[in-house]
């Protein structure tokens, strides 16, 4: 069975502070990991995926297979980063279901 755990529900930081949103997963194979974001009154959308190894809006996430983690990081938070963030895992194989964590609300204060 696959599982995604986001241990915190809320993270509140001041503008300019570093941010780390935690994500741990459980899956026996080689998963694909994603971070999705939902800004206020907008639909859920992809932020980044682990295989791209890219930085989007200053955010990065590194897949650590040893710790089964995929934490999302940004060195200097901006107010516009305030949103709901979901970590997701997609299994590989014939039935590749996309499983989400419970999500975390990031609040960046001025």
């Amino acid at each position: 069975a696959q599982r995604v755990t986001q241990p915190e529900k809320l993270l509140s930081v001041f503008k300019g502070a570093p941010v780390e949103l935690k994500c741990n997963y459980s899956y026996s194979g080689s998963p694909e990991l994603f971070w999705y974001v939902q800004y206020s009154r907008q639909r859920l959308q992809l932020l980044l995926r682990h295989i791209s190894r890219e930085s989007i809006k200053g955010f990065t996430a590194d897949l650590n297979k040893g710790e089964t983690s995929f934490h999302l990081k940004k060195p200097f938070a901006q107010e516009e980063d305030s949103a709901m963030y979901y970590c997701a895992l997609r299994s590989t194989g014939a039935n590749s279901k996309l499983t989400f964590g419970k999500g975390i609300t990031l609040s960046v204060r001025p």
Partner: protein
Amino acid sequence: GAGVSQSPSNKVTEKGKDVELRCDPISGHTALYWYRQSLGQGLEFLIYFQGNSAPDKSGLPSDRFSAERTGGSVSTLTIQRTQQEDSAVYLCASSSYGQGSTEAFFGQGTRLTVV
């Protein structure tokens, strides 16, 4: 259309009534998901369709919930004898399937309120 479309955007219904929520996925996407989003509960998986395979219904909370996908395209989520705890935003997403990473595209959701 260019994206995933859901209808209606909002639905208010009386307790005990049946409701149908519709999802039009992106053309050509073989995978379709339904999720429920409620305050404090995050994103709850309901059901997953992939091509002609049997759907994964493991997330449906009770037998009052059912979904179908006709012709591999449009999907309908039906909730029978609605209860107040069914109030939530119901999200639909679709993605293509194949080798390599594929992105799931979400609809704007249907906000269901059971009174």
